[in-house]
């Protein structure tokens, strides 16, 4: 691993100037390293952070990565990591013109890392330095505690997708946003009147009018309320008390309240959990902006390189490389291609002023096609977009029927053709809502699991899984809970939902003609009955029962 030559660095610096002219913003300092493919294989299990702590699962991944490379050699162009300064890795063997294109792509990524608000929690941290000190600490612990350090890492990583990223981020974005308790007013209007008393609209509005009137006077609004509903105060206090959802995420809660970790000889475990938690938090924005980040980088390498005189003589080469990276596959999803086209689409729509009520209310197709207000505000608009969106909101907001039609997109289905013994690919839907749902289903979405404070009593840690029409992967529950039990030092309960599947007989299955599918015949979604289950982990034994 070595820095690029002065000549190549010069190319990079020139790229920076031109990128800045178009409104991209990033720090002056960047580091570019030349690495071998072998280095890449060894770095990728460590999410490309050279100083990340050592862990045996990384070694397993390196060994299988080497096997994979042996079977399917590949040559990645670049990898960028979100550090200060931003570090990027390259292959040794690129010609200058290709480096220009790759550098534009990399600058797109760096701009994204440093401007997208969802990365705000990573802006003030020197990750490579932090990771190095963590690595040293873990190495130190390992020399004292041996393999138990690895168990703790394993168990902590088992819950590192349950970190409260959004809450953490919120604190960065709104520094003074201290959590408000449920106020009396909110309780009265939102819960008491509507849910407990079920008052009529008329009466509700009357109360609001009365409240507004009193705002200007000195009278206490609640005097009359208590006169009318003597039970109000008690109910309000009760409501405050039942707030069961813990503010802390599962990892924090364990660090703070685990009886096992309170013992002095186990103190060190807290630091390990903290390291794993911080690392996970650091990478949360990256997992949630794959399509945007790749799309943004691809948008800019295309835009900037096409306008760069250094392309001359290499137009065809560029077209070939660019197409390989950004073409839409006939079947399948390519985040680079999708994100790139969506950014282009957003720019065009905004340029024409289509994000407006006038346009939305247009009913005829021809009028829509011809609509053009010549706003030409697209460039600023996409800069704003890259600042304020994540994949979910990006997809959900901007994929519209116009986008689907323009690029001939569709949801591709796959079904088993019994008579021909083939898998058939077919156009399942060209509807924008179906397409959006299909893309959104591929996004990172960890289950929402929180500590239920009310039920976490008598040494039990009670986890509640918020039901979102999807069950948890059953095979993984046991080992994950073994780990939590270890860190918690007591029984762990998990409440979750499972579909009820009517008993299938063996004969039924044997006649099932599709061997390639592991899915069991099921009724359509509406007919699935869900039941709430409780998993109990105690002394490394798992039981479950219906609630």
């Amino acid at each position, binding site marked *: 691993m070595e820095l690029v030559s002065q000549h190549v660095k010069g190319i990079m610096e020139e790229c920076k100037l031109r990128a800045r002219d178009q409104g991209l913003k990033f720090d002056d300092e960047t580091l570019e390293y030349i690495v071998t493919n072998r280095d890449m294989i060894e770095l990728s299990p460590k999410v490309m952070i050279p100083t990340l702590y050592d862990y045996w699962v990384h070694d397993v991944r390196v*060994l299988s990565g080497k096997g994979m490379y042996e079977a399917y050699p590949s040559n990645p162009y670049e990898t960028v990591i979100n550090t200060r300064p931003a570090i990027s890795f390259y292959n040794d063997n690129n010609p200058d013109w290709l480096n220009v294109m790759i550098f534009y792509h990399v600058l797109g990524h760096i701009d994204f890392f440093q401007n997208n608000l969802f990365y705000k929690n990573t802006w003030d941290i020197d990750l490579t330095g932090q990771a190095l000190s963590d690595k040293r600490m873990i190495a130190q612990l390992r020399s004292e505690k041996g*393999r138990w350090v690895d168990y703790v890492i394993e168990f902590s990583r088992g819950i590192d997708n349950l970190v409260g990223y959004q809450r953490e981020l919120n604190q960065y974005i709104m520094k003074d946003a201290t959590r408000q308790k449920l106020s009396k007013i909110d309780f009265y209007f939102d819960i008491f009147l509507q849910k407990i008393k079920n008052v009529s609209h008329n009466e509700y509005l009357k109360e609001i009018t009365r409240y507004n009137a009193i705002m200007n006077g000195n009278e206490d609004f609640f005097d009359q309320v208590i006169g009318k509903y003597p039970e109000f105060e008690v109910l309000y206090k009760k409501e405050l008390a039942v707030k069961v959802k813990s503010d802390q995420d599962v990892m924090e809660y364990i660090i703070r309240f685990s009886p096992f970790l309170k013992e002095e000889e186990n103190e060190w475990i807290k630091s390990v959990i903290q390291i794993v938690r911080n690392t996970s938090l650091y990478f949360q924005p990256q997992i949630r902006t794959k399509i945007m980040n790749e799309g943004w980088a691809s948008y800019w390498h295309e835009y900037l390189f096409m306008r760069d005189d250094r392309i001359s003589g290499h137009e065809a080469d560029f077209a070939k490389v660019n197409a390989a990276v950004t073409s839409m*596959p006939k079947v399948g999803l390519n985040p680079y291609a999708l994100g790139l086209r969506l950014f282009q689409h957003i720019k065009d729509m905004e340029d024409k002023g289509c994000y407006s009520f006038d346009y939305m209310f247009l009913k005829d197709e021809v009028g829509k096609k011809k609509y053009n207000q010549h706003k030409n505000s697209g460039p600023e608009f996409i800069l704003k977009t890259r600042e304020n969106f994540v994949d979910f909101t990006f997809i959900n907001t901007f994929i519209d029927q116009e986008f689907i039609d323009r690029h001939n*997109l569709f949801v591709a289905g*796959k079904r088993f053709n*019994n008579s021909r*013994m083939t898998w058939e690919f077919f156009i399942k839907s060209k509807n924008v809502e179906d397409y959006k749902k299909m893309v959104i289903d591929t996004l990172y*979405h960890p289950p929402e699991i929180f500590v239920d404070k009310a039920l976490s009593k008598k040494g039990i840690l009670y986890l509640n899984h918020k039901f979102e029409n999807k069950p948890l992967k059953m095979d*993984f529950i046991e*080992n994950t809970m073994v780990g939590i039990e270890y860190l918690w030092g007591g029984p762990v309960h998990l409440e979750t939902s499972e579909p009820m599947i009517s008993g299938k007989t063996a004969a039924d299955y044997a006649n099932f003609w599709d061997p390639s599918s592991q899915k069991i015949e099921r009724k359509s979604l509406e007919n699935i009955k869900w039941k709430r289950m409780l998993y109990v982990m105690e002394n490394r034994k798992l039981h479950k029962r219906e609630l």
Partner: protein
Amino acid sequence: MITLDELLERDRRREEDGFKRKIRIGRIVKPGSGGKDKIIIVPTTVEEKFVHDDIGLDQDPGEGEPTGGTGEGEEGDIIGEQPVRPEESEDGEEGSGEGPGEGEGGEHELESNAYELGKVLSQDFQLPNLQDKGKKRTLARYVYDLTDKNKGVGQILDKKATLKQIVGTNITLGNIPDVNDIDPSKFIISPQDLIYRILSREKDYESQALVFFLRDYSGSMGGKVTQAVVSQHVMLYSWLLYQYDKQVETRFILHDTEAKEVSDFYKYYSYKVAGGTKVFTAFKMVNDIVERENLARDYNIYVFHGTDGDDWDKEGKQTIAEIEKMLNYVSRIGVSIVEHSYVGSKQTEVEKYLKSSGILNKYNNLIKLDVMAEDADDSRIIQGIKRLIS
């Protein structure tokens, strides 16, 4: 960098510490041309977390995950298809070029990797060493094959190689001014340019073991069951390879209501089919092959059969008859039944009739049965192997 052995050592210690093992032996199969596949053995592991299961509850049976797509067409149009089974290309049909006897690639790569795995299994998982490697005489075999190339003289002219050589010579001589316009009539041909294939004594290894792998690939064998069977068979193969110091030959047989032999492990491993199940067909095929090729004299024969225990022949009469015939010559029959989780603790048909027939007791040193659940992990599978070969 940590080695595979160290990883496995660490994994074994997990058990002592009261946790489940986590390392599995994974296989990367790189399909090559003409069935010469490369299998690379690597460790794999899964980091368990609470995650959503991506089962498509709203999908019809026989339908795969939807994905994106681009192109012309209307809803409902079929845009392509992919065969469920890989195309079978018969040996020798893969066109000109190297014929049989190719010494490298393919099979070989699997073997060297599998040998390593066998070593790992024997040493790290403490699989027993073979007690008795059989009393049959070791046999030195010579295979004569037209593989070696020779300039000038030989049995068969290798036209392609010769032509290449001639072109090479002529380029060196400057006799081809324009490579895009070659006039063969102007070639200068030296006798040394003629390349012949000559008969050569190819292999003289001592062959000891012949292993038949039998697998049920009927409709009921989907998913985990097949994975478990195949995993076990790969490990068995690897272990035997190590035990017999690489002198193992293998035959692969798949069956549903009919049995068929496939040429290599990749096909054995990847074929999926739908249909009913007649277990006896596979055993019958083994008996036929052994008789026809007179194999019993020269080899220690092992037969391993993997199934989910489903059989149309509920009594197992035909199967038992074939097995009894087989017991006359085999060193070991190992039957693994992988039960579907929905079967519960009920006995499967194959298990029932094997037990009631009494052959398991009568010939308990020749035939072994192992029944495991479909979600068996590697350590359970290895335990199964111990049972089958004990």
